[in-house]
């Protein structure tokens, strides 16, 4: 039901925003130079560039609007390589593009652009602030945390920095610090972003109902003229509904997301998951295959492989399992833990799975990494190690069903081992 009218409105909204963005960029382009001369304070960070800049939810977006913005800002940067405002706006658009296409590569370009800008203008607040978010999307969590702390020191009142810090700490498994950061963010500025983070923190601790309530608040608090953000919150609401086995609600929220932002990957995959949960494997397969053409990822290919396997189609499942592995290559942002879990779960290269998971676990201790490590150990026959990692994966009280099922298997194996030892 995307009427020509609706897409026209979206285009117009995007155009208006581009105009705003260009003004912002123009100002931003001049400001740092002028001010660096005028204001020689050691922490010379005198001025922010403007509201349209550096916000993950910045302007209203649509697929075409995003591409247009990226083109405009790239052109601007070619004309004026020194334009930090354009760099920030470009990074923002690339970040959204990465999210809307499930493809991490745009974020690489964004970090390149921002780092170049930082070289010219070290300490330029908006660049720094944006870079933290970009590092997050590239899964460079330590770097993101470090940048966010620097950024926080410049502007302790800016809630954004606590969001980036908390996001990084969540991924690193530093939960207590992460929750403190989210609380600080909420204390400074309750808004959609803060509500969404509370939702995630609740979910991690097993409070899925509470998570859903907070995510619904986030969805309500999202600007009506920002369809990408609206779609994101709808899809998250769908995921949480799915976890609560509210299939109709989940299906509706995923469809809402797709209505707002056609082919939104999270929501397309979500619709497939709902079909799987309803026993409609063929329906799910059709959706996944279609989506795979748009956003080829390990996760999708693995899901397709699973569905073919369930259907008894060994050749096809083998094909897609191989594809899943191939898609984990460089250039795509996947969590490595995902790959380890996938390999272990599908009994492929279990020793590789252990190596990968151990390498990841050396850097971060979030429950999903620990879970992947536990499962890799388990499949490699290292039950004691599996049990220890599995206990760490359970430490937040998560109710994630797949994770709990694996923990149960590991616990049972540990008990059997203990019985044998007696």
């Amino acid at each position, binding site marked *: *039901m995307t009427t020509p*009218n*609706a897409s*026209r*409105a979206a285009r*117009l*909204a995007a155009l*208006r925003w581009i105009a*705003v963005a260009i*003004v*912002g960029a123009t*100002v931003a382009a*001049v400001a740092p130079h*002028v001010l660096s*001369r*005028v204001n020689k304070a050691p922490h010379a960070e005198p*001025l*922010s*560039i*403007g*509201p*349209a800049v*550096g*916000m993950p*939810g*910045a302007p209203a977006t649509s697929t075409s609007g995003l591409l247009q913005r990226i083109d405009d800002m790239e052109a601007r940067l070619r004309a004026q390589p020194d334009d930090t405002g354009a760099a920030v706006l470009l990074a923002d658009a690339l970040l959204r593009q990465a999210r809307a296409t499930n493809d991490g590569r745009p974020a690489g370009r964004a970090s390149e652009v921002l780092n170049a800008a930082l070289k010219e203008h070290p300490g330029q607040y908006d660049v720094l602030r944006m870079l933290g978010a970009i590092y997050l999307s590239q899964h460079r969590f330590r770097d993101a945390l470090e940048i966010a702390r620097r950024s926080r020191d410049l*502007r302790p*009142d800016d*809630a*954004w920095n606590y969001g980036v810090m908390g996001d990084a700490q969540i991924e690193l498994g530093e939960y207590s610090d992460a*929750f403190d950061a*989210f*609380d600080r963010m*909420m*204390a*400074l*500025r*309750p*808004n959609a*972003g803060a*509500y969404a983070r*509370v939702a995630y923190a*609740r979910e991690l*601790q097993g*409070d899925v109902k*509470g998570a859903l*309530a*907070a995510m619904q*608040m986030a969805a*309500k*608090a999202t*600007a*009506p*003229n*920002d*369809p990408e*953000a609206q779609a994101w919150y709808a899809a998250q609401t769908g995921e949480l509904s799915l976890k609560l086995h509210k299939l109709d609600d989940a299906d*509706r929220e995923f469809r*809402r997301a797709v209505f*707002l932002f056609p082919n939104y990957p999270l929501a397309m995959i979500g619709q497939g998951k709902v079909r799987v949960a309803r026993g409609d494997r063929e329906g799910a397969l059709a959706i996944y295959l279609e989506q795979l053409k748009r956003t080829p990822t390990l996760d999708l290919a693995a899901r397709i492989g699973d569905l073919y396997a369930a259907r008894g189609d060994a050749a096809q499942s083998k094909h897609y399992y191989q594809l899943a592995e191939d898609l984990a290559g460089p250039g795509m942002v996947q969590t490595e833990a995902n790959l380890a879990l996938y390999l272990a779960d599908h009994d492929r290269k279990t020793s590789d799975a252990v190596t990968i998971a151990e390498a990841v676990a050396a850097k971060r201790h979030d429950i999903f990494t620990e879970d992947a490590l536990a499962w890799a150990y388990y499949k490699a026959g290292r039950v004691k190690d599996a049990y220890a990692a599995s206990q760490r994966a359970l430490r937040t009280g998560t109710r994630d069903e797949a994770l709990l099922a694996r923990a149960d298997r590991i616990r049972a194996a540990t008990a059997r081992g203990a019985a044998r030892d007696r």
Partner: protein
Amino acid sequence: MKKTLLFASVIIFLVSFLMLTGRASSHREAPLISQDPMADNTDLYAFRSPDRPDTVTIIANYIPLESPAGGPNFPAFDDTVLYEINIDNDGDAREDLTYQFRFHTETRNPETFLYNTGPIASLDDPNWNRPQTYTVTLVQHGPGNSERSSVLGADLPTPPDNIGPRSTPNYDALAAAAVRNLPGGIRVFAGQRDDPFFVDLGSIFDLAGLRPFNPFHLIPLPVQAGRDAVAKYNTHSIAIQVPIAQLVHAPNTNIGIYASASRQQVRILRKDGASDDGGPFLQVSRLGEPLINEVVIPLGLKDRWNRTDPEDDGQFERLYSAPEVSRLENLLYGGVLSPITVTGRADLVAILLTGVPNLNFTGEARADLLRLNTAVAPTAPVGSGNRLGVLEADLAGFPNGRRLEDDIVDIDLRAFAEGYGSFLHGLLGLPNKAPNNQLGDGVNANDKAFLTQFPYVAVPHQGYEVP
């Protein structure tokens, strides 16, 4: 060096005015608010109602940047935001009365994501899939921190957005049906309206240009007529009309008003079974005098300023007494304007933070409040007052309250440039520098005529007509 400084000032000014991008006097302001339009105050108006002169009408606008054709997600008030209009009636800069507005959206058919599935002929038409109702609560603040709340009205209807001749035929009548009378002679309306603010942003963005003064700018251009950049945009208004007797603290006739939006804080950890989604509300946006957030408060302070209550505004006084805008006016139009005093501007502190003696002075407490002397009778029907208000001896206009027709941009440009006009010069001895007293952006009126009856704000532009 001089040029560098000049450009620095231009940039600062432009950055301030960037916040105007949202096409009203306070739009897309704090970086953290820019993504939260539903909790973003854009303008506040307060005036004695010309057609019901024993009442005061207060209009608080929210949600910047409403494109009339902005579907499929048409804007509405946010059910999770606490909207408030606060009134200080005893001059201590603390609110004595608060009118609270909470909204509730019903989804009639969860299986469609469309705003409506057929023409909306009435406020309870089943074709309207997302009707929104609201509750008005009066909070009376007593000694200490005591409060008494009373619900003035519940389940009050709002009109739909103005979509087009198929979805919302007879829109004017549809919207008029949403005006409700509450006990005690109070009248309320909440819903989409034309954005009543008017300003030539296009020129102001271009190195702070004012088209009528183009030849006198440092970078001269031929004179042009001003162009209203806010024309054809909508906003959401909360309008309330209250008998004066309920607002004032006799014998004091002056009141100070500010509008705000607050969001609820929720905590991460929940006790088993107990909901903790009912945390305290934190003010995330406020508005008293127009344009303060844009031209007085620098970007780095905007978030803090928005969180601060007016009673604590003393900390911002220096920004009023040494205003950046005045400095900029000197720099950009120095060739033609009489030099403007840029420090010790007690006149601005008075007008914007305490009220003008013998007009709307509320007390020594510095606070960003829109101040209205309710003893001053209306001088004209809505829309017909002198656009320059008190500057041209129309005491019922800005800065004594604010009417829809008051030309805030021109008044501010002149006030900041010490061009107060002969009336205020004679009355209060305020400076009347020339030609500073002629400054203006050339946009003198709203693009749409106001209504002569409550809620006065013009009917919103229709999506079908205004892409």
